[in-house]
Structures are given as C-alpha cells and as structure tokens.
C-alpha cells in the first residue's frame, strides 16, 4: 500500500510539473511581449518597456521558467498586477468560497445520482432505465450557465421561490446561506447528475452479471443483503473515480455559474483577473485548480484501493 501511494505521489508531482510548464508556455511563450499583451496595442513603447522591466518579463525565457518552477516549489506565485498583493492568499480565499458552493452541489447530486444509477441498473432496459439514461445524457450536455439561467427565470423570477443572487447578507446563519446558494448549486448538480448516474449504472450492471452475485443470490441472501454486501462495494469503484474527476472540473463550470448568480468566489476572481489581464492571478488560479484535481483523484484512488484489494494488488505488481 505504501509503495502504491508513493508511486501515485511521484506520478502526481510529474503531472504537476508538466501542468506548470504548460501554463508557463501559455503565459510566457505564446505572447512574444508580455507588457504589450497587458497594455494593448496603443500603449507607448516606453510604458511597455517599463512594465516589462517591473514584471521581469524582459528577462530571457529560460530564466523566467526557472523562476516560475522555483515559485511553484516554494508556493510563491508572485504579486497581482492589479493590487500588488501576493496572489496565492487571494486565490485560496476565492477557492474556499467556491468550495462552499461546490460542496453543496456535490451533496445534492451524489446521493441522487447514485440512487438513480442503482435503480436504473436493477431495471435494465426497462422504461425507468431508459428514462434515467436519457435524462442523464440530456442534462449533462447543457452548459451550467444555461441551466442556471433557466432556473433563475422559472424558480426565481416567475415562481419567486428562491433568491436569484447567491450572496447571502452579511453574518447570515447557515440555513439562510444555504437558501441563497441553493439555486446555483442545483444548476451545477444537474450537470453532474448524468455523469455519476451513468457510471453507477454501468458499474452495477457489470457486477450484477458476475458469478459471485449469482452465488450470493443462490445461497439465499435477500436482494437488499446482496446489494449492500456485494454489489455496492464493487459497483461504486467507477463512480468514485468519476466523482473525483468531476470535483476538479466543477471549478471550470463554477466560473459561469458564479457570474449568473453574482457570487464572489473563484469564478469572479478569475473573470476580474481576465478583464485586467492579471496573469499571475490567472496562473495561480489554474495551478491551484490543477492541484485540487490531483488531490481529489489521488484520494479517490486510495479509497478504491482500500475498497477493492484486487486493484491494490494489481497496482503493486
């Protein structure tokens, strides 16, 4: 188990290094003149040169690359071009606020979609199964901001059931905060319902066809007992993997959802940085989300290995 963990960690670090290299290439190699990119085509050349001097972007690319990798290792992503303060605390604060929204979305979508996937698998190829699969495919293909818009119009504006802005008043208690976050969370939950339900369904169907389930049924276990003791443990392996992947991707969709619902989290921070061409802020944001993704998939792999010794043994070989 320790060797497996170490192997995964090393691979994760290599991926992180490659990821930082990709981001460096986008921000430092694609634009031939970073100062010009930030100030636009009409700025006088002296101003551009002065900005490049101040940002250190007039140094040769290998020097800048070494600098950015040192920055990654020491967790120093530089200062914001806009407010001059270190970007990492600002990004982490924003990620924290978004995490509240993301957690609520996952809390809604995970139980519902696993239940729907199990139900569909038990009724394979019957009407309920087809309906769940079709609904999953359909709902997961709609962008979050579109679902959000439709929810705002129907639930917020027409029925007036829930607030249409996500930010609760200052010092609001938890139920009030949740009430304000409910609509955007549902908008995201709807998108991820399809992926998780389909994975659960596929995993369960696989397991239901296996010999050991037939044995369990023949030795007289009730359906509920078989499901709990034998099916779930194995069927949820692909589900856990897909949830981990979605936790990282959630932070892509959250940008648009936060814009629709005017919520001050990761999305708002990234969009503001994008408007002001605040490259250190954007860079730190992308890398932090990359780390979130990798930690989530690592944790998922460990859970899977712990749940299913066969996978663990195979990985160790």
């Amino acid at each position, binding site marked *: 188990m320790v060797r497996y963990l170490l192997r995964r960690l090393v*691979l994760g670090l*290599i*991926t*992180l290094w*490659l*990821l930082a*290299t*990709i*981001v460096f290439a*986008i*921000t430092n190699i*694609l*634009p031939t003149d970073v100062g010009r*990119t930030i100030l636009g085509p009409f700025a006088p050349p002296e101003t551009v040169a002065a900005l490049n001097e101040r940002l250190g972007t007039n140094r040769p690319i290998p020097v800048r690359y070494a600098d950015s990798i040192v920055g990654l290792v020491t967790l120093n992503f530089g200062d914001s071009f806009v407010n001059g303060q270190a970007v990492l605390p600002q990004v982490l604060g924003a990620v924290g606020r978004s995490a509240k929204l993301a957690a609520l979305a996952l809390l809604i979508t995970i139980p519902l979609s696993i239940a729907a996937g199990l139900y569909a698998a038990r009724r394979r190829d019957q009407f309920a199964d087809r309906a769940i699969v*079709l609904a999953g*495919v*359909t709902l997961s*293909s*709609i*962008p*979050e*901001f*579109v*679902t959000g*818009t*439709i929810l*705002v*119009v129907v639930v*917020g*504006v*027409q029925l007036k059931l829930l607030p*249409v*802005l996500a930010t609760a008043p200052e010092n609001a208690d938890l139920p009030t905060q949740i009430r304000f976050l409910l609509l955007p969370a549902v908008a995201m939950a709807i998108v991820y319902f399809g992926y998780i339900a389909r994975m659960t369904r596929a995993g369960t169907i696989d397991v239901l066809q296996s010999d050991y389930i037939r044995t369990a049924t023949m030795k007289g276990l009730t359906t509920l007992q078989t499901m709990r003791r034998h099916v779930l443990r194995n069927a949820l392996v692909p589900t856990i993997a897909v949830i981990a992947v979605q936790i*990282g*991707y959630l*932070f*892509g*969709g959250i*940008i*648009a959802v936060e*814009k*629709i619902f005017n919520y001050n989290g990761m999305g708002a921070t*990234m*969009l503001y940085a*994008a*408007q002001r*061409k605040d*490259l250190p802020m*954007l*860079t730190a*944001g*992308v890398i932090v*989300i*990359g780390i979130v*993704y*990798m930690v989530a998939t690592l944790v998922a792999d460990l859970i899977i290995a712990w749940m299913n010794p066969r996978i663990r043994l195979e990985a160790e070989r």
Partner: protein
Amino acid sequence: MDPSASIAAGQGLPPAELPVEAIPSSRAQRASARRERLALLVKRPAFLIGAGVMVFWIVCAVLGARITPYDPFNGFSLGRQPPSAQHLFGTDRIGRDVLSRVMVGSRDVLIVAPLAALLGVFIGTLLGLVMGFYRGIVDDILSRIVEAFLALPVILVALLTLVVLGSSSLVVIFVVGILFAPIVARTVRSAVLSERQLDYVEAARLRGESGPFILAREIFPNVLGPTIVELTVRFGYAIFTVATLSFLGVGLQPPSPDWGLSVSQEYTNMISGIWWPTFFPALAIASTVIAINLIADSLQSVMNE
C-alpha cells in the same frame, strides 16, 4: 509463435478486416453494412428528434436574415417589450426582435464549434494512434502530457489562453481544438491498444508492412467507428465550451447575435423581471446541445450493435 498459424488466423477474419484492395467484394460488403447501420439509426426516435432540431438550426444559420420576421441587427422598435403577438419572444434592451436574433444566433457557433471539434479529433486521433501503436517511451511521455492537460478544466485554460492571445473566432477554434485533443487521444489510444493485439496486425507485420502503413491502412479503418462517435460527442462539447466562453466574454464577440453572447449581454436584467432576452437564447443553446447528444448517443448504440 508459428508464423503460418497467425497468417491463417488472419485469413479467417471477416473480409472487412483486410485491406480494401485485397478483396474487391469487401468494399461492397462494407457499404451494405453501412446502409444497415443507417437503417438502424433512422429507426431510433432519439436520433430523429436530434437530427430534426439540428436541421432546423442549420437552415436558420444558412438562410439567416432572409427568413426572420424582423431585421435581427438593425430592426429597432421599443426596447424590452415582453413576448406578444408582434414579437413572439419580445424585444431586447435596444429594441431588436429576440426571435429574429435567436434564429440567426446559430450561425457563428455552428461554424466555430464543428471546426474546433474537427481540429481536436484530428490532432487527438494522430496522437492516440501513435501512442497506442508504438507504446514504450513515446507513449509514456505523451501520456503524462495528456494527463497534465486532463487535470485542468477546459474552460479555465481556455480563459487564460484567450486573455493572452485575444479573442477572435479563429483563436477560439484553435484553443478549444487543442484543448480537446488530449481527451480524444486517450479514447483513440485505448481503442488502438485492443486492436493491435489482434491477429490481422501480426499478419500485416509478417507481410513486412511498415509501422506507419499498418497504422494508416490496417488499424485506422478499424478504430474509425469510435473516432466518429468521438467527433459527434466533441461537437456537442465544443458548443458547450464555445457558448460558455462567449458568455464569459472571451468567446464570440459583438455584434455577433450568438446565443451565449446574448445571454451575457442581457442576464443582469433578469432580476428586474426582463427574462425573455436571456431565456430564449439559453433555450436555443440547450436544444442544440441536447440534439447533438441524442445523435451521438444513437450513433454509439448503433455502432455497438
């Protein structure tokens, strides 16, 4: 392994698995298999609904302002009128007919998204073929790079890249296409991995065919099915991505009547009850992505049958 045995096994395969030139009748057989699949496809209601919706939007995109009730760009009347008999979908903040704008709003995204999907599938298929076939160090290195790309949400990296490069339709196509390539590469790679173990590849090798030739003429035709499914799926995601980027202000640019852009220009008025200029473009996006996914899903099940 005894070479003669594996060649014999190669001949035992259905003719469709062998090069087209070798057996003339295989072309006819392939064509008939294709007709059969098409017949299966048009029997599926999900496919018909999806295709119907897409035909509608393509007709709107091609005919544009010639079939809209009002001028979508300069037909100004009173702003912010709710839906009525004159303006079925109401008017937007500067008095343009929302229905007319929604009808022509399909044009830009239906050019940009398919091109982005095509680019992504093209690069991704090349990468996937090479990774799956050659394995070894090439595969290891490329796999790690693919993994690094997959760790990032497409929207976030696209946002960063478009900020750096500036937004234009061409840049959007390239950025989305390149960000889709690793996802496609992974799918194609696993399809190639299962193909390369089959006897016909061994047979081709024993015939002395070169690696690139085997890849292009033997393996590629056999992974074409998953590649086509991947193309339709990517097309759906390209619409998803381009619409989101336009909504975020870094995708298609004004004065395009693009749906995502319309939502971004009008959504702040939803709270004051002016929902129609946002709601109808949003529904248009939903109808398009659902239609493409219905088509992709039907294709996938027909291919698997």
